[in-house]
């Protein structure tokens, strides 16, 4: 049990989450024939690639004790704007296109950040409003036209499914690999870089952060800008994966990303959590959703009810489990003295 005392609470949280994930997988493997195979991995990994990015951005914001409800609208707008650029200029350099999506997202994120950090409007108010506003921009900008796959170059639509490498039947496709890379990079930055700690400090105690010489405003601004950036990248991925973009693109992503983060153990009151956790949370939510469709026991109409119950159960289990582990760790440490 020496291990437990050496692990940080954050690591314990991840372990609890992995345990919950394992339980879910085992349960469905028993229930559904031919469940546990490479294809399951491919399904979940491809579909979680987009939400992983959004949840990463959401996590950065939640860490600072804020929330970003406008992510869905930002994804929708970025996807559409990117799609219409490439449709009109099919020869555009791929990197420029990604950059464009990133810039669009970041710009929106910066508006959120400026209003929250510098105009001191609570984030829930700002992003509730910009959620509506950005979607309105999309409706206005799109003029009821859709982006269709036929207008997109092949490299773009092929990108998400391009296999990068594979382990057995498990394919690591470009979309998933790219977003996994982003998650890992952000994780490393968060845990290793000195300036990134300010994010935790501001979320943990904003007043104290201000007094400790941290420019809390800039930190919050940056978190929102990064969330916008992530939404922009997710918009790009959304476009590449689905090809057809209408005004409803990304609708409902805000709550789903919040759910992913909190299921992943990010403290909704700020200050603690990890993007790896949020990533696992996104996987868990996606896994539940997909598996429930395949589970013969629940009919189409029961699925939502069961999903709600399972999310709650997952969060409760995870919370209780990590509380237990933390306590266990505390006593072990005490004994060691």
């Amino acid at each position: 049990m020496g291990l437990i005392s050496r692990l940080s609470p954050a690591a314990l949280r991840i372990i609890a989450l992995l345990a919950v994930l394992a339980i879910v997988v085992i349960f469905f493997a028993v229930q559904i024939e031919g469940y546990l195979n490479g294809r399951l991995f491919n399904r979940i990994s491809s579909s979680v690639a987009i939400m992983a990015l959004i949840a990463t951005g959401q996590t950065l914001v939640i860490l600072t004790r804020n929330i970003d409800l406008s992510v869905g609208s930002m994804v929708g707008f970025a996807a559409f704007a990117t799609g219409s650029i490439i449709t009109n200029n099919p020869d555009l350099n791929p990197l420029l296109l990604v950059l464009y999506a990133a810039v669009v997202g970041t710009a929106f994120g910066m508006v959120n950040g400026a209003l929250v950090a510098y105009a001191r409007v609570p984030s829930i108010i700002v992003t509730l409003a910009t959620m509506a506003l950005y979607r309105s921009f999309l409706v206005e900008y799109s003029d009821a036209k859709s982006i269709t796959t036929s207008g997109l170059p092949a490299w773009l639509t092929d990108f998400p499914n391009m296999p990068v490498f594979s382990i057995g039947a498990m394919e690591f496709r470009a979309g998933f690999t790219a977003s996994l890379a982003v998650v890992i990079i952000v994780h490393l930055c968060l845990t290793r870089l000195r300036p990134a700690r300010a994010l935790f400090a501001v979320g943990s105690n904003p007043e104290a952060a201000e007094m400790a010489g941290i420019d809390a405003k800039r930190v919050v601004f940056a978190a929102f800008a990064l969330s916008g950036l992530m939404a922009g990248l997710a918009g790009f991925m959304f476009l590449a994966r689905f090809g057809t973009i209408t005004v409803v693109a990304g609708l409902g992503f805000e709550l789903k990303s919040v759910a992913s983060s909190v299921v992943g153990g990010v403290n909704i009151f700020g200050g603690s959590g990890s993007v790896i956790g949020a990533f696992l949370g996104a996987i868990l939510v996606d896994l539940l959703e997909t598996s429930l469709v395949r589970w013969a026991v629940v009919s189409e109409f029961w699925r939502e009810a069961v999903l709600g119950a399972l999310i709650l159960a997952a969060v409760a289990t995870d919370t209780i489990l990590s509380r237990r582990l933390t306590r266990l760790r505390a006593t072990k440490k005490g004994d060691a003295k």
Partner: protein
Amino acid sequence: MNPVLALRAVSKNFGMTAALTDMTLELFPGEVHAIVGENGAGKSTMIKIMTGIHQPSAGTVEVDGAPVVLSGSKAARLRGVAAIYQEPMVFPDLDVTENIFISATSGLLLNRPAMRRRARELIARIGMTLDVDRIASGLSLAEQQAVEIARALSQDVRVLIMDEPTASLSAHEASELRRIARALAADGVSVVYISHRLEEVFELANRVSVIRDGKHISTKGIADTNPQTLIAEMVGREVGNYFTKMPSTATSETLISVQGLSVDGVFENISFDIKRGEVLAMAGLIGARRTDVALALFGMLKTSAGQVTYKGQPLQITSSRQAIDAGIAYVSEDRRKMGLAMALPIRWNITLATLQKYLSPMGLINTGAEVATAWDYKKKLNIRTPNTDIAVGLLSGGNQQKVMLAKWLNMAPDLLIVDEPTRGIDVGAKAEVHALIRAFTAAGGTALVISSDLPEVLALGDRILVMREGRQMAIINHEDASQESIMALATGQKDAA
């Protein structure tokens, strides 16, 4: 020699309140400059102007003789001005190490092992032991204070301001801290030291400034003044000697008797009884677990063994409601976390624990009676506020303390447990609080006072219970107690009798 930091005719208004008026102060390298004044005199406000948290309404701040605008604490930090604030400012989700180095700026990559090593050194330098991997949310107030001090020490500072750093430290740590302050001054740092403990001021400071009502009253070399003069300057009148022990008002009837009280892994086998009208003082170092004993008596901590006999009946308390119904009150040491709802009006806070008394049968609040009570306490406890409807968080620390006391006194409890009753309270108010506790026991009330301030323990306690690391060392009668004997028990130099 030039002052490293100076305030020139600085004023600060908060709306209608003038917290500082025409304040001028010079700080020189290598001096320990004490600042004293009543609660609400404007000391903390002045500090916050020096560190860029507040902007002056008028006047200028000078660094090295040149006027500067300190736009935020970062700007101040860059000029070498750092502070330890009155209310500890820790990050509950981060561990001790990260808390200490949160405002460090050097290096892009974090070097955890080096940080932990250095954190341990810094903590040791204050004379404390603290697991540097612990998450700060579990730290006691004193430990939080230690973290803050370590944070300040971790930086290169030219001016170090300490706003009541010893308020929640016990004698041992406090003396370590004073040693550090002297050492820093010897290195040429200008140390500003705010304290309500005058003996500290005289032991430590080279110069002392008095502030009253936001105005500068005097700045003198420490040799040119004495405690009586200082107090007179602070409060504008003479104050009686409040450290004289008043005769005991204990009766022969036992109010509460505690036998073998334990909480697994926290404290064990605590046994004492208190007579009606008596004051039992609890002394000990930080982490002696006195607060936990109080929490257990108040039903906020589950006990694992032991009995409590209260008014002759066995009593099992599992919630604060039960304790309150039984006539037990607990004045917490942590005002912000457990004491006061800072954003709510003073009046609401005062009647909070006794709300039942102000309700009509329909459950509606009798506002008239409530206002009357609030004003009553405002006068009785001399709470400095224009009215009782403003947020209690806007009051100075000492006045907040009085509001908290008012909340529990209003309950007219049989047993009043007071944890650090005069933390951060000025001399005048301290005397008033002591008088209040005395009046309370003289009127038949019973008190359990937890204090880290040894003179206070001696001034109040009819008997003194000394704790050390969760164990009860001894109960000594006042006549047999001295600062030295208590310290010896608390530090374990002398074993339990």
